[in-house]
């Protein structure tokens, strides 16, 4: 069984074998790690009794997965800080992007569809502050950002999403770049190849921060 964030589900669906159950949780839960943890634990607890392994389509995600446990299932979680690392295919690739240009805003189809990004929150901000002030606040939120990257995972037609991203970049004065994603982590997750890129938590054990640390 898979429990995944809706942003990850978008990328997982094309890879799923028939018969695998995938429960999707709202991306909005990310704004509150405690609420996300609670929703995840509830989803784990309500898994059918014949399930013995649950794959979480999440990374460490602001430490929301810490504290999760199941009395009867093994939990499998990609050993990544968040889904950017998952979409880029490795922790090393993520680090390379982050250290190369830290002021980067990342988008995929899932983020755009889930409206979980500053560009989509524009209307909410306008409602709250009025247009002039909303643009100012959004400008401040993005003041250290120089680049908007669309991660193309190659799994679907991206034209519409590339256009959206390009327009968002233009509108807020960011350099647009399309970068190639890598589905290695997701492919390994769904095919049971749970190597060092995954955290495996036995039944009765609890997910801890140290599980996400990498050997130096």
């Amino acid at each position: 069984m898979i429990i995944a964030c809706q942003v990850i589900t978008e990328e997982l669906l094309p890879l799923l074998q028939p018969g695998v159950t995938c429960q999707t949780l709202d991306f909005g839960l990310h704004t509150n790690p405690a609420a996300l943890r609670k929703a995840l634990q509830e989803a784990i607890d309500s898994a059918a009794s014949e399930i013995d392994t649950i794959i979480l389509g999440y990374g460490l995600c602001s430490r929301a997965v810490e504290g999760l446990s199941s009395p009867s299932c093994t939990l499998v979680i990609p050993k990544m800080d968040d889904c950017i690392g998952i979409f880029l295919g490795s922790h090393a690739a993520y680090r390379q992007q982050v250290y190369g240009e830290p002021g980067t805003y990342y988008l995929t189809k899932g983020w755009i569809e889930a409206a979980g990004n500053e560009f989509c929150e524009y209307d909410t901000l306008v409602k709250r502050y009025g247009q002039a002030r909303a643009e100012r606040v959004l400008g401040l939120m993005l003041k250290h950002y120089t680049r908007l990257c669309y991660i193309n995972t190659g799994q679907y037609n991206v034209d519409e999403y590339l256009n959206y991203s390009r327009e968002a970049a233009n509108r807020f004065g960011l350099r647009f770049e399309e970068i190639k994603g890598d589905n290695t982590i997701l492919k390994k997750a769904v095919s049971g190849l749970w190597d060092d890129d995954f955290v495996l938590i036995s039944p009765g054990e609890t997910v801890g921060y140290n599980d996400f640390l990498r050997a130096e």
Partner: protein
Amino acid sequence: MNEELVAKISDLQEEDALRLAGNIIKQGGDPNDVLAAARKAMEEVGQRFAVGDYFIPDLIYSGTILKGIVSIIKPHLKQEEAPKKKGAVIIGTVAGDVHDIGKDIVVFMLDCNGFEVFDLGIDVPKQVFIDKIIETNAKVVGLSGFLTLAFEAMKETVDAIKEAGLRDEIKIMIGGGQIDEKIMNYTGADAYGNDALDAVNLARDWLMQ
């Protein structure tokens, strides 16, 4: 304490807050009182964020109002005799991270509590922290970071300070994002703070013993 000013700032009424602060100064009011009201308002904003009434854009907006207030009162503060600084603190957002809302509030709070603050900005390489420690002889370093990925950079910065032979002379505090004792232990810092007041208290404890 000018409660009206506290309310205008914490309610994010920018124009009213700036007009009121300007009027207080024009009428010969004490800039330190304006600063005290701003400080109290920022605590209130932090409180509203903690309980979920305010969101990240509100924090950013409050920071903008704060900057406006500071720019109104700063010229008048300079005319007075500068109070003796309580000690120096170096602060910056670690390499790979560009988040600075929290850091900027910490810088403001340290500054208006009498500390000399060297703000290194965002995405600060570990060597820049080391160079600043040597240059200023500051005894407290604050490492800020919002991403969980930044915890690695914090650890690398602490390790680099240790390798440079400076670790025993300084105290290191970390803050931002989901930071607690586990992250403090992982990074090798001496302490962590949940908010700007924690940072002020830590600096005070370390520098004013």
